[in-house]
């Protein structure tokens, strides 16, 4: 850990002691402390669980009676309505950025790839959980097909939905991008993905909270840095409300 970070941490610990004042939370020192704490969490999780350890998978009999939709519940455009009514014949998933072979994949193509089926628990940052069975190709299959270049450090998920007038997006690093349970789901509980859960495609990032699981997916982009994506914090909620980019806690 860099020396200046340690100093910030000590200053912050002192601040905790002298009073839990909200203004402390807005200072630059405080934000560097919470980011440090967050990166410790991420590093501790990665050290304990390794890169490939799986989130628990449940039996099909354990799925919850319904699966709540949260955040965007639809894409509010006539084009989306028409696609939804017709089974998404023209929907495409674009694979772009730092790849050797950019791809443009139809839903049919994604369905024809080797599929992973996983019954997992979805944990919302708000506190609730739901269990569902997800079906789709692994992101790693698609990244390998596109030939991700070594300089790529992150994968950005582009979405069709908007919230507060902004386009939703999310991102993960290569550890989570290549995790075996990171899939592009097109089915929930054996049916085509419902509208409120992100039809026709959504991400599953099983070792992180729900806001990382981008819905209404239109694109996958390999990038070296997140600085020039959105406002640079790596995701919609990260930009809008300062949510932590690493959502494993």
């Amino acid at each position: 850990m860099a020396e200046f970070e340690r100093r910030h941490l000590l200053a912050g610990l002192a601040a905790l002691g002298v009073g839990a004042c909200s203004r402390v939370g807005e200072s630059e020192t405080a934000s560097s402390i919470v980011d440090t704490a967050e990166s410790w969490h991420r590093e501790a999780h990665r050290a304990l669980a390794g890169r490939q350890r799986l989130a628990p998978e449940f039996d099909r009999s354990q799925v919850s009676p319904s699966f709540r939709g949260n955040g965007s519940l639809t894409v509010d455009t006539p084009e989306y309505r028409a696609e939804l009514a017709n089974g998404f014949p023209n929907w495409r998933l674009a694979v772009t950025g730092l790849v050797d072979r950019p791809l443009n994949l139809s839903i049919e193509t994604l369905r024809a790839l080797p599929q992973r089926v996983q019954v997992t628990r979805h944990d919302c940052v708000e506190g609730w959980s739901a269990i569902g069975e997800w079906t789709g190709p692994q992101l790693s299959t698609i990244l390998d097909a596109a030939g991700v270049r070594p300089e790529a450090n992150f994968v950005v998920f582009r979405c069709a939905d908007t919230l507060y007038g902004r386009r939703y997006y999310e991102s993960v690093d290569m550890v989570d991008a290549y995790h075996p349970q990171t899939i592009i789901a097109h089915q929930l509980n054996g049916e085509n993905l419902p509208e409120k859960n992100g039809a026709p495609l959504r991400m599953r990032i099983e070792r992180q909270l729900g806001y990382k699981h981008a819905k209404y997916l239109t694109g996958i982009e390999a990038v070296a840095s997140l600085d020039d994506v959105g406002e640079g914090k790596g995701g919609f909620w990260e930009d809008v409300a300062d949510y932590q980019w690493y959502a494993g806690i």
Partner: protein
Amino acid sequence: MRHALSTRLWHWINAAALVVLFMSGLTISNAHRRLYWGNYGFAPEDAWLHVMRFPGWATLPMFRYDLAEARDWHNTAAWLFAVGLLAYWIVILVNGHFRRDIAAGPRAYTPQAVLGTIRGYLTGENRRAEKADYNPLQRIAYAFVLGVFLPGMVLTGLAMSPGIEPAAPWLVEAFGGRQSARSFHFIFAFALLGFLIVHVAMVFVAGPVKTLGGMIVARSPKDRAHG
């Protein structure tokens, strides 16, 4: 009572961390005000408890709802709390404070011992006595707080983390599922609040100058006068 430097240091760091954790925890509770048993839960009919909305003066950040900031406070103070608790446990096991002063053997749990202590509080006898060691009720209370509720907060907190679960799925199972862990986290937090209220009340009953002095500089003013 004189307290070792390790006890005084940990006591105040822990107190500060707990205040931050509790108040930011109330904001996190406000984000979804229902508790469930088992692994999943989101519908009102699944809930075993509908939690009140905690008022702005009790939450962190105060007087505004900001889940991201509350989680930052919570997950940062959690390091201080968890690492501090682990360090304190190691110290009191090594220096004998736990075995000598806190460990409550079977004799502490007898109705006679407990009733005798309560009688002592009611008659004021406990207050007058300059006791060098903890009475049976204090031993039971401190043993439960140190041994059950404080570590319980850490373990149930870890069990709610989707990044920890792949490393320790048994931890989540031990509590009966992620939503059960969340419920226990809430229950333990309020058990600790209950302890805090009684604890502070007892400080006033026993004489705040003497007890606070003991926890700050290890000796009461009287000790100093004599020393």
